[in-house]
Structure formats: structure tokens, C-alpha cells
């Protein structure tokens, strides 16, 4: 489609008072073939918007540059449908509200902003969503047939979607099926597990297909297009799948490592899992002699909240022990239960069950076991009672129950070693390397993803493949694959049900969005996708290695094989590519390069330095808006270029800027490190790493390294922005003008 571009400059909100609008119209738009150039005192008002609409309808304008306020406001007023490209240029927060009015420097800033906008509009193409040739599947694969897995499948079915469950055991149920009772909302008494009914519902549901004694052998493709090889009872099957829920559950912490608590030494010391199974089977008796049980002591946090074992809290064990104490009392009302604890953690309404357990006469002792022994066929436990402040000895115990914690099924016993990549440090003589917890290899086999970046979901600390984000608990680093239940975090049954429903929602949503060519979180709805100009690819593999979502596979020669439905549109691949072959329709290396080139670089004797700031549009850019709204002031010599993610920053922009005489480069990105805030996992970190390599460029140009700087700017750091800029401008003044000006 031929472009017909119009520029509209709003003169309201102080813009008209700060700038020479006629001069801006002339000098800010030259060289871009703009067809219509108008200004209006209240562009977002009905009259202003109508003015634009008239030109769209009457003049055939199809590309609109709005030079006014921030793109974060009036987005609805300036939306003219998908056929009209809208480019926003900030003259308000970044110019009129933060710069001295009617100054030459302010005018030049506005002109550069407008020129960058016109340049960007020129290079923006209409978006055509990705559409695969094969038909899309909207079926949900659920790996794991326990409470979370069965719930996810049933809930998806209730919304009209087909589901496939793959369960490794010969029957559904998981740990729920091995329990006697549960404690759940409203936490007043024990409840039936409902396992049998739930299994029945799943088996009766025509939209659910169940494979038992089964495993997933291989997952290839991407959302909407997954091909899943399943082995069940020795037979093989392949399913076309839209999205995946992994609910492979947990295993109890290995009590054999708890010898200090008598496990393995005394038969009557059992784990809470063994206790549950005994209760479910019928009667709780002493394992040593099958005798009746009267006095039971529960040791809480057995191996949990312990840096030597599981440093985290398994959340459910307090309630489980109270539940099992209830079993003991139900069996023998005269029985006495002692519960030795660190903190009782019954949150929310489950406090009611704690109150009940206390009212039932169970003895809660805050303290730690110091010794466990046997005397006269009965066990005794010595403990420091914190509340009495003295050592106590509890004797005549029939049983001791160790409340062991939950280990995610994804955590392997040992840290795996894999074949090291060619340039990896720390490989042994066989070329093998121990992999980090978030490597994607660090997990027990469940999915067997045929992905360049590893066969399983990346995990967080302690092996949980959970989201790193508080606001987005279903954020996943493998698009279209969501986790649910105790696999991702120790949780009680009520939470596991909620979690499974939520995961089913995300899986369904992913299939729907994918079928329309739309991205999922965080750029939900984005219909652009990266296109690779393969003729110029040098097989350097940077894109396949750096993609935070494992979207790009590789052929044997090292050519990238993109999977657009796995792509999250961050542009990290585009930033990584030294050959600049990766582009989006509305975001490319060439486009940003042209924007930077459109910035006027004054001669050295004018003493007007120029700094380009590549700024993350998710956090730092809104912060800059805030600084403007607060009417903070900063240098008029800086030009802001928004980035989808700072990880899409390509070093060529820095090299080109510096060789044109730009005096300095600032990068504003999100916090990285353990508590990273980058919405694309490691975008800002990658940008920072790439910056380390910029020294080569600087050396080649014989320029000072002080000219380029990375700054972490969070969304609430607006009050810091003027200071950061001022300090950087001082540094630029110190190192002096870039000698390449005028070349």
C-alpha cells in the first residue's frame, strides 16, 4: 500500500507556548514526504480528532503522525483502526513540560522528536499477523493426572475445549487418591478427598482423553501447533495440541536424610506421607508391632526451613499434622497428640482448623527436637520448649511422625551435566558442564521439548518451574506451557484447584490468541513477528541462544528455525543479530537506525552536545512521563528512542551514532540480577552484556568509554531521572565533543 502521511501538531497543554509551531512544521517534517501538515489547539478534542478523520476519509491519509502528548494517554482518541498507522511524537511531557519555553534548544529538541517520529512512520509497515499453513489445535495437553491435572482438564472441558491427560501411574488420582481426608474451605472439619468422584467425572467427560501408564516422549512445534508423542502401555500415539499444562506434582522429601530424627533407625518413626497412607488403608497402628496407637508426636518442619535440607516452607505440613492428629483422636478419643513446631502456619480461614485442633486437646509445643530415642519399646523425644524456656522430655510415645516437606517433581536428585556449548567456561575434560537451575536442563523429564534451549521448563530456586513475577504468576519462559499445583510451589488442595483453573484459563487463552496471530503476555495482542532474511545469516547462533523464551530452534548447520507461535515479540533476537537480518514490520534495526540518523548533530563550535537515550518502553519511559507530569527539568540535549525491551538494542546503533558525532549514549533499562524486573526475563541484562562488547567499537573510533552508560531505571524512579541525566551530561562535557562531528 502506498503511504499517505499526515502530521498533526497539538498546540494545547503549553506546547504552543513553548515552541515556534510554524518553524516546527517546516523544519521538523522536511525530507519525509509528508502530504498533510496541520496544527490544532486541542487535537484530542472532538474537533481535532474530526480533523484527522476528515483527512483519512477525504484525503486518503493512511499514516498519521500525532505530535502531542505521551502515547500513554489519549490512545483511544487517536485510534483510527488497523488500517491507519499512528505514530505518536511526544512534545508535551518530554518537551513543553520539562524544558524552558521558547528557547532554541527546546525548539531543536521538538524538531528532532518530530523528525524521529516521521522517520519511524515512514519505515513502519502495515502488520500482517502470522498464520501457519497447518490448522491450529486448541486442545489442551495436561501432563499429570492428580488433583491439579484433573482439575485443569475438567475446567477446560467445561469451557468447551478438549483435553488430553497423560498420567505416569496406571490410574488417575495422584497423591489425592492416596489420601484419607483433606482439610479445605471452610476449614471446620475434615472433608472427603473426592478423589473417586473426580476421577469418575474425568472418565465420563467425552472431551477428555486419558492416557495412563503413559509418558510424554517428545513435544515439538509451538502453541497451536504442538505435536506431542505419547507412549502409553507400550503403544505410541501422537496428539496435535494447542497449549500445555504441566501438573506433575511433588514428591516427599527423602526422610532417609533425616537420620537425626530417628527415621530408618526406629520403625515407629514415620513420615506424614506414610502416616496418611496408613490412615487411608484403614487403621493407624505401630509399624514395629502393629499395636494400638495412643501417644503420637509430630515433628514439624522435618527437613523444612532448614538450610541443610529444604530451606523453604512447604506450607501444608502444619495443617496435615493437625489433620492426622484428628485421625488419631477419631480412632482413640483417649489418644494424646503432641505437635512440636517452629511456627504454626495456618493462614486465612484455616486458622479455624488450628483453633479446632487446640480445642480438641492436642498439645502444641513451640520448640525443636534435640533427641529421639527408645525406652521400653516406646519412643521418647527431648526438646527445647521455647515457651517454657526449659528442656522437656516426652515419653511413652507410640509413634513419631515427621512432617516432611514437598519437593517439586521437576527437581532431579543430582544436578545434571550436559554437553557444554563451544564457548562455555567451566567444562570438564569430556566437554560436560554442570547446568544452572534456570538452564532448562535442570528438571526431571516430563515434557521432552525438542527445543534448542533444553528439554524442560526452566526452574527457579529449589527447582520449582514457577513464574518469577508477582503480578504475573502464569508468566512462563516457554510460551504456551503453564505449570499448576505443587509442581510450582508447595500448596494446599484448595490452592491447587484454583491454580489449575487459572492454568487452564491461560492455556485456553494462548490457543485463542495464537490462532489469531496474536502474542500472549506481556505484549498480548501484538500481531507483529520477527522475519529473518536468511540469505545474510552467518549461523552465529546468537539469536537462538539469547531468545529468552526458547522460540528459535537451529538446524544442523546452525541456521535459525523460528517458531513464530512461541515468539513473545520482545525483539531480543533482533538486538542480538550482528548481521541485522531480523525485523518486525514496525520495528527493525534499520528503522531505529534511521530515527537516530534523523537527529540533527550541531557543529562542534555550537557547543550543543547530543546524547541518544535508548529507553525501555515498559518501565523507564513511563517514568520519564512521570518526571514530565511533575514538571521536572532536564537537559535539552538528550533524545529518547523507545525500545520494546532494552534487549532488542543492537550495537550497530551505538556504532553508527558515535561515528556520526553523537556525544554520548545512555541506556535506560530494568533492574537485572536475581530479582530482575525485565518483563522479557533477561533483556536488560543482555543489553548490559552487549555494552561490554562496545569497547571494541569505541577503541576502533578512539573514543572514551565514558560516552556510553547503562542505567537501571524502574518505573517509580522518575525522581532520579533528572539527576542521572545531569550527571551524565557533566561527564560528556568533561570528555569533550565527539571528534566525528561533521563527518
Amino acid at each position, binding site marked *: 500500500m502506498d503511504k499517505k502521511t499526515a502530521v498533526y501538531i497539538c498546540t494545547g497543554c503549553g506546547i504552543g507556548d513553548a515552541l515556534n509551531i510554524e518553524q516546527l512544521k517546516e523544519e521538523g517534517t522536511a525530507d519525509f514526504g509528508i502530504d498533510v501538515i496541520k496544527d490544532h489547539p486541542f487535537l484530542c478534542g472532538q474537533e481535532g480528532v474530526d480533523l484527522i478523520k476528515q483527512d483519512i476519509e477525504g484525503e486518503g491519509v493512511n499514516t498519521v503522525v500525532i505530535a502531542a502528548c505521551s502515547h500513554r494517554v489519549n490512545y483511544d482518541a487517536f485510534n483510527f483502526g488497523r488500517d491507519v498507522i499512528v505514530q505518536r511524537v511526544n512534545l508535551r511531557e518530554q518537551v513543553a513540560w520539562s524544558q524552558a519555553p521558547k528557547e532554541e534548544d527546546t525548539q531543536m529538541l521538538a524538531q528532532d522528536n518530530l523528525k524521529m517520529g516521521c522517520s519511524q512512520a515512514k519505515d513502519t509497515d502495515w502488520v500482517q499477523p502470522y498464520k501457519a499453513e497447518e490448522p491450529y489445535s486448541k486442545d489442551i495437553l495436561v501432563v499429570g493426572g492428580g488433583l491439579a491435572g484433573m482439575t485443569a482438564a475438567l475446567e477446560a472441558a467445561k469451557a468447551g475445549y478438549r483435553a488430553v491427560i497423560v498420567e505416569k501411574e496406571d490410574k488417575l488420582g495422584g497423591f489425592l487418591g492416596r489420601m484419607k481426608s483433606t482439610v479445605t474451605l471452610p476449614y471446620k472439619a475434615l472433608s472427603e478427598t473426592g478423589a473417586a468422584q473426580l476421577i469418575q467425572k474425568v472418565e465420563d467427560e467425552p472431551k477428555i482423553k486419558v492416557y495412563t501408564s503413559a509418558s510424554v516422549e517428545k513435544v515439538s512445534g509451538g502453541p497451536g501447533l504442538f505435536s506431542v508423542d505419547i507412549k502409553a502401555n507400550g503403544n505410541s500415539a501422537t496428539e496435535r495440541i494447542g497449549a500445555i499444562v504441566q501438573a506433575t506434582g511433588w514428591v516427599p522429601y527423602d526422610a532417609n536424610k533425616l537420620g537425626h530424627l530417628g527415621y530408618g533407625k526406629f520403625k515407629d518413626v514415620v513420615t506424614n506421607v506414610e502416616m496418611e497412607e496408613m490412615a487411608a488403608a484403614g487403621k493407624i497402628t505401630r509399624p514395629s508391632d502393629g499395636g494400638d496407637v495412643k501417644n503420637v508426636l509430630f515433628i514439624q518442619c522435618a527437613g523444612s526451613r532448614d538450610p541443610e535440607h529444604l530451606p523453604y516452607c512447604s506450607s501444608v505440613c502444619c495443617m496435615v499434622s493437625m489433620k492426622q492428629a484428628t485421625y488419631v483422636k477419631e480412632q482413640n478419643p483417649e489418644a494424646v497428640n503432641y505437635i512440636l513446631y517452629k511456627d504454626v502456619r495456618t493462614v486465612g480461614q484455616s486458622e479455624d482448623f488450628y483453633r479446632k485442633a487446640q480445642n480438641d486437646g492436642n498439645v502444641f509445643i513451640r520448640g525443636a527436637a534435640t533427641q529421639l530415642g527408645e525406652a521400653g519399646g516406646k519412643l521418647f523425644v527431648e526438646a527445647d520448649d521455647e515457651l517454657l524456656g526449659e528442656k522437656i522430655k516426652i515419653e511413652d510415645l507410640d509413634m513419631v511422625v515427621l512432617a516432611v516437606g514437598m519437593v517439586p517433581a521437576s527437581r532431579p536428585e543430582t544436578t545434571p551435566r550436559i554437553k557444554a556449548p563451544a564457548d562455555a567456561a567451566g567444562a570438564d575434560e569430556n566437554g560436560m558442564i554442570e547446568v544452572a537451575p534456570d538452564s532448562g536442563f535442570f528438571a526431571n523429564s516430563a515434557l521432552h521439548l525438542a527445543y534448542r534451549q533444553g528439554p524442560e521448563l526452566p526452574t527457579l530456586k529449589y527447582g520449582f518451574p514457577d*513464574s518469577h513475577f508477582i503480578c504475573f504468576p502464569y508468566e512462563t519462559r516457554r510460551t504456551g506451557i503453564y505449570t499448576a499445583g505443587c509442581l510450582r510451589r508447595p500448596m494446599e488442595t484448595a490452592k491447587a484447584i484454583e491454580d489449575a483453573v487459572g492454568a487452564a484459563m491461560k492455556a485456553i*487463552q494462548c490457543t485463542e490468541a495464537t490462532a489469531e496471530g496474536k502474542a500472549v503476555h506481556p505484549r498480548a495482542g501484538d500481531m507483529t513477528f520477527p522475519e529473518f532474511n536468511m540469505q545474510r545469516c552467518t549461523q552465529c547462533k546468537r539469536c537462538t541462544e539469547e531468545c529468552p523464551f526458547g522460540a528459535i530452534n537451529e538446524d544442523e548447520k546452525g541456521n535459525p528455525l523460528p517458531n513464530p507461535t512461541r515468539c513473545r515479540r520482545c525483539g531480543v533476537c533482533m538486538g542480538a543479530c550482528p548481521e541485522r537480518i531480523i525485523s518486525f514490520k514496525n520495528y527493525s534495526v534499520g528503522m531505529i537506525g534511521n530515527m537516530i540518523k534523523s537527529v540533527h548533530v550541531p557543529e562542534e563550535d555550537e557547543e550543543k552536545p547530543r546524547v541518544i537515550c535508548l529507553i525501555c518502553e*515498559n518501565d523507564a519511559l513511563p517514568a520519564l512521563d512521570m518526571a514530565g507530569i511533575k514538571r521536572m527539568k532536564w537537559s535539552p540535549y538528550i533524545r529518547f528512542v523507545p525500545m520494546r525491551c532494552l534487549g532488542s538494542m543492537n550495537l550497530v546503533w551505538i556504532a553508527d551514532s558515535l561515528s556520526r558525532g553523537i556525544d554520548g549514549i545512555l541506556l535506560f533499562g530494568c533492574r537485572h540480577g536475581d530479582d530482575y524486573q525485565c518483563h522479557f526475563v533477561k533483556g536488560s541484562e543482555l543489553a548490559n552484556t552487549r555494552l561490554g562488547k562496545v569497547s571494541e567499537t569505541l577503541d576502533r573510533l578512539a573514543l572514551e568509554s565514558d560516552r556510553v552508560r547503562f542505567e537501571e531505571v524502574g518505573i517509580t524512579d522518575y525522581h532520579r531521572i533528572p539527576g542521572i541525566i545531569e550527571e551524565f551530561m557533566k561527564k560528556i562535557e568533561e570528555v569533550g565533543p565527539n571528534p566525528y562531528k561533521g563527518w
Partner: protein
Amino acid sequence: MADVQTTSQAILVVGGGMSGITAALEAAEAGYDVVLVERNPYLGGRVTQLYQYFPKLCPPNCGLEINFRRMRQNPKVRFFTMAEVASISGREGDYDVTVKMAPRYVNEKCTCCGKCAEACEAEIDNPFNYGMDKIKAAYLPHEFAFPMRYILDPSIVGTDQGKKCLDACEYGAIDPDMKETTFDLKVGAIVWAAGWNPYDAAKIDYYGFGEYKNVITNVMMERMAAPNGPTGGRILRPSDKKEPKNIAFIQCAGSRDENHLPYCSGICCLASLKQTTYVRERKPDCDIAIFFIDIRALDRLEDFYVKVQADPKVAFIKSKIANITEDEGTGNLILEGENTRTGEQILMNFDMVVLATGMVPNRIELDAAPDVTHDEYGFFTNNPEQPGIYGAGCVRTPTDVASSVQDATAGALKAIQSIARR
């Protein structure tokens, strides 16, 4: 507002906090029409007033910004601020809902230029900062407000001050004649995500909140730590604006107490642990004492507890404080109670006290409401026998942000099922 109509294929989400926003967006991104109503003049709810989230100590606005962007680009979600549900009738798949909108006195022409606030001389207690400072009576609720639009406090409408705002606005955005309006919706399912209120600390009379200036609540502490808060991010005691040398956090202030809230509010332990880091960041030598019954840091949040325990100037004292009195001369607070670990009587003096007050759910209380169930504490019960209206987030159970978002995502699917089943 006769133009607001929806088919019964739409979902109504009540409450525009983290849970409501999530439920609305998750359903909309799966292709469903959603109407979101929020009582405040802005979306975001309680989390907008938090300085940081535990355990990452990251700013809530970061996630909100992403959510607002999702909302900006998704035509499937329509939202109304200053709007409350007045009545609900009907059943699953076919609800008639009346929504009441309070007047904002500022219309959609507002460009946020700020001229009305410049012209206005009247001030009101700043609701965003729990009344700890003043704000002009023509105001933007906060810098990150979404939608970004000013509001006039009703107290100046029809007065000289209101006239000054009207005259100052160049865009005809001030509308003193705005009245309360109502409009009707037809929807197929409802997600109730109306959130929570902090427990009224004044009801715990032995702690002197409201009487002793230097006794504040945990939500007030959040505002104090925020750079856009009443003190510009400085932690100062209210009586004399001095930096406290020592601070006490009292856990379970009203929670786990049959005279107040019998349940555990789930988040207060972590909130106080987090707030110790606010104090530490600003004052390396400030002594902190946390008076607690149990520290409830579930799952990997335990790591955060361990981190705070490593701070040598944070003392954990197992005690339920029985009484607070104020030293009138200094404004200091004298805490009395029993150290249940040592059995000793506590008589300790602090410059400032933070009450870790709990969560009270906003239940459905309408003149006309269909059958819904609440538990004895007012928490919404998702009853499978009563499908169509689903609770999400803290209306169901007191919980943290991540769990609320999980629950709200689940709520979106339940609502979709109510429509899909038809």
C-alpha cells in the same frame, strides 16, 4: 449513558484492583467481552498505594503499567471508574445489573494540563495517602492514575473555588452540573473482585490508634515509604516529623483474635518484614522490634524471613502486646505485654508503632442481589450450586498479590464457562 449495552455474552467484573483487572484481561484476551466497574476514580486498587511488593521489593506500578497497556490495546474490555454496582438480578447466563456512577465533575475533554489544580486554593485530606497530607480539591489522584484524568472534590462544586477551576480550564473539561447517573447492563456472568479494606485499627482500643499520633497502620507505612507519598519517601513519625530511632511492629493487630478478626490475614507477616527493609534502607541504625505470635512466611517466602532475621537490628519478640500508652511529653509509646518466650514482662519504649492490621473483605451488600454465600467472616464462598457469580482474590480469602492474580485468572475461566454453557 444509554449507549452502554452489552449482550448476555459479556462478563461483568466488579472491582478494578489487581484481581479485577486480571480477571477482566484474562477473559478479554481469550476473546470475551468484559465490562469492568471500579469505585475509585482510577484503576489499580490497593496495590497502587503500596511502595513495593514482597519479596522482590519491586514497584507495583511496573505490573500495573503492563496491565494498563493490555487494557489500552484491547477493545474487548470497557471500564468505568467511580462506578458501583447498585443491583443484580437474574441468574447464570442472564443477569440484569444496574451500575451507579458518581459524578467526577471532569469530563473526557480533560488533558491533564493541571490548570484547574493551579487555580484551586481549597485543599482536602488526600485520600490516596490515607489523609496524611493535603491535596488540592481539583486533583489527579496520583501520578500513575489510569485513566489519567483530574477529579473535582464535591466540596468545591458550586463554590467560588469550583468556579476558579471552571474558568481555568481551557478545554471545557470541568462540568459542575454532572450528576450521579445509572446505567443498565445485561451480562452472562459476574466476577466479584471488590477487594478488601484494612481492619479499622481504632477498634483495637488498647493500642490507641487515632489517639496517639505515632501509632500508624501498615498501609500508612506503605505511603510513607513511597517517593510520591506524604513525606516524599521519608519515614517520619507523625507527631513531630522526626526520624524515629526505634520502631515496633505489632503483628496480628486485630487478626487471629476472636474479638476482632478470628482468621489470619495471611499477608501481614511478610508486609512487616518488608517494611523493616524500608526502614533499613533509609536508616541503618534504627532499631526494630517485631512482636508476633507466629511468623507465617509460606513456601519460598521463607527466604525473605531468613534475610530479615539476618539484620542484627531487627528483634523478633514472641508476644501479643496487651496495651500501649503514650508518653505525653515526647509522644513516645510504651508497650506492655508478656514475652511468651522468656515469660518476662515487657515494658518497652518506642518512637513509633506500626500496627499490622488485617484484611476485611468487601462482601456483596446490595438491596437486590441474587443468591450468593459468604462465610461467617464475610468472605465470598464459591458455591458450585450457585454458578454465575464468582468471587476472586481477597474477597474469598486474605492473600497476597500473586495468589489473588492466580485466583482471578481462575475466576475468568469460571465466568467463561457460565457463558459457554448456554
